[in-house]
């Protein structure tokens, strides 16, 4: 089609011009003074017998992209938002500004959403499929009201058993689970006995995060961390399992110290650290990437709270089930999201250390439970991320405590 070849010719010409920024400045002038600049731009456009949509003023492009984002709230159609953010810099800038973080919107959009705290006002309902043969676990977010459906794939984890520990490597790509891959997100490591676990983030959860060398966990002071360290191991949670007073006849006790989240995050007006971008692989660009850009999300742009070394970290504990005399079993109210009894099932709440003994907070931050053979639901909310939630659930699969 001649029109198509005309566009191709124009594109080649415009391409070389746009890289020099001449076009951008001209259309910007057009926005500022519609009477003057626009006629020049319009005249030029007419002369070329067509248009280059790259000339669309930013506010008009925004009108279009906002509509795409509003229309495509659910997966799989939400992929349109990601596609738009990959078209060019102008589109990406606008789309990244339009999309709000999961904490505010309750929606997952970009891969980085998996590293950001869940919604404050609702839970994100996900499910996990286990493949026993390949020792792999797949996390999906539900796309309908059903407990499990086709879902939208989020993360995959592969179990790697070693002589003295076990690793679960977590990746964005179910086809590439290797640690060296750019899709590697982090891992869960268990001790030999399967009683204690550490969740490691491949990327720093915040500026000045402590770094752990591969063998020994060397705690480096905040001012000693070199920002040039590439994807590594940043411990973000420690999980431990214990028997309760009834021994293996009762539900086990879980304790999760979320070292990257301050205890104040769950208080009124509290904030949890939020990553805004994955660091690019280029090591030279690493230190210059700001982790907390104020323009992301329609949220308070002041610096989020970063737990200092001595600040209290958030601790999550599992809610104590009640003994049901008639049914002769331990019961938790899973609100229909868990249908098969299993010692692996749990609900985590923020532990209120300062309150009266035995008092628990009401909000269930993470709920995990069996709904079928090799099928489990996982519901999470603020202040933990999908990645952290997934890792904690994996520990429940692995631990040998109170398993008969």
């Amino acid at each position, binding site marked *: 089609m001649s029109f198509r070849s005309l566009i191709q010719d124009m594109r080649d010409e415009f391409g070389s011009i746009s890289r020099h920024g001449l076009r951008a400045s001209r259309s910007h002038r057009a926005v500022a003074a519609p009477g003057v600049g626009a006629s020049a731009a*319009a005249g030029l456009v007419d002369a070329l017998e*067509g*248009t280059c949509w*790259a000339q669309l003023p930013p506010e008009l492009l925004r009108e279009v*992209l906002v509509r795409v984002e509003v229309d495509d709230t659910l997966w799989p159609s939400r992929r*349109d938002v990601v596609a738009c953010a990959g078209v*060019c810099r102008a*589109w990406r800038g606008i789309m990244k500004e339009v999309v709000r973080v999961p904490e505010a919107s309750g929606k997952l959009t970009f*891969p980085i959403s998996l590293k950001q705290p869940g919604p404050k006002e609702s839970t994100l309902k996900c499910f996990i499929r286990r493949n026993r043969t390949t020792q792999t676990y797949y996390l999906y977010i539900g796309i309908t009201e059903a407990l499990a459906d086709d879902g939208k794939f989020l993360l995959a984890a592969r179990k790697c058993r070693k002589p003295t520990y076990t690793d679960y490597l977590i990746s964005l790509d179910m086809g590439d689970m290797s640690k060296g891959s750019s899709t590697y997100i982090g891992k869960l490591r268990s001790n030999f006995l399967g009683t204690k676990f550490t969740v490691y983030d491949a990327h720093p959860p915040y500026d000045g995060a402590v770094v752990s060398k591969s063998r020994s966990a060397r705690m480096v002071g905040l001012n000693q961390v070199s920002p040039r360290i590439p994807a590594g191991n940043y411990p973000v949670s420690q999980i431990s399992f214990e028997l309760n007073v009834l021994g293996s006849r009762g539900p086990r006790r879980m304790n999760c110290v979320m070292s990257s989240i301050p205890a104040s995050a769950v208080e009124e007006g509290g904030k949890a650290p939020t990553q805004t971008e994955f660091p690019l692989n280029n090591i030279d660009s690493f230190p210059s990437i700001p982790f907390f850009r104020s323009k992301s999300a329609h949220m308070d742009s002041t610096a989020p709270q970063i737990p200092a070394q001595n600040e209290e970290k958030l601790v999550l504990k599992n809610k104590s089930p009640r003994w049901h005399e008639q049914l002769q079993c331990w019961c938790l109210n899973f609100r229909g999201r868990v249908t098969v009894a299993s010692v692996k099932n749990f609900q985590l709440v923020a532990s209120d250390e300062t309150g009266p003994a035995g008092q628990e907070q009401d909000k269930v931050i993470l709920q995990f439970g069996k709904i079928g053979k090799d099928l489990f639901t996982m519901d999470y909310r603020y202040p933990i991320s999908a990645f952290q939630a997934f890792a904690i659930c994996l520990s429940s699969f692995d631990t040998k405590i109170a398993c008969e």
Partner: protein
Amino acid sequence: MAATTADGSKVVGGGEKSNVDEESKMITLFSSDGERFEVTQEAAAMSQTIHHMMEDGCVDDEGVHLPNVGSSILAMVIEYCNRHVASPDEKEDIRSFDAGFVNVEHHTLFDIIRAANYLDVKELMDLCCQTVADSIKSKSVEEIRELFGIVNDFTPEEEAEIRKENQWAFE
């Protein structure tokens, strides 16, 4: 009064108005290339830009000059406004008119958006922006670039990151 556009396929004017007896004040609009269009004030007022000019008494006997809108596009905008003020209550008819109206070449849609923005015709802006948004759906990054004639201006590192993002999103 009607004006025909270059390709002759779109006819503008009061031909479809049902109540010709009604006293309707007219206003003259001039496109950037000097063509003259007679429009009812009611239809013209759909453009907030023109509406404010009329209210502020900035319209003289000659009419309104619109240096930013070419004749072919202005004709289309006027057709839209005439149709919408003629029978605003006939929702089904309006809907099918709108669907036919935006069934144009992609670059024409671009021109209409620019004109609707300059003239501040909100309904037309909404219609066109929604149409463009709909044309983006279910397309890959490459297909969107092709459709809009947009150049990929990412660095190789950014491109790798975007490829990873899209691979995950389309998994």
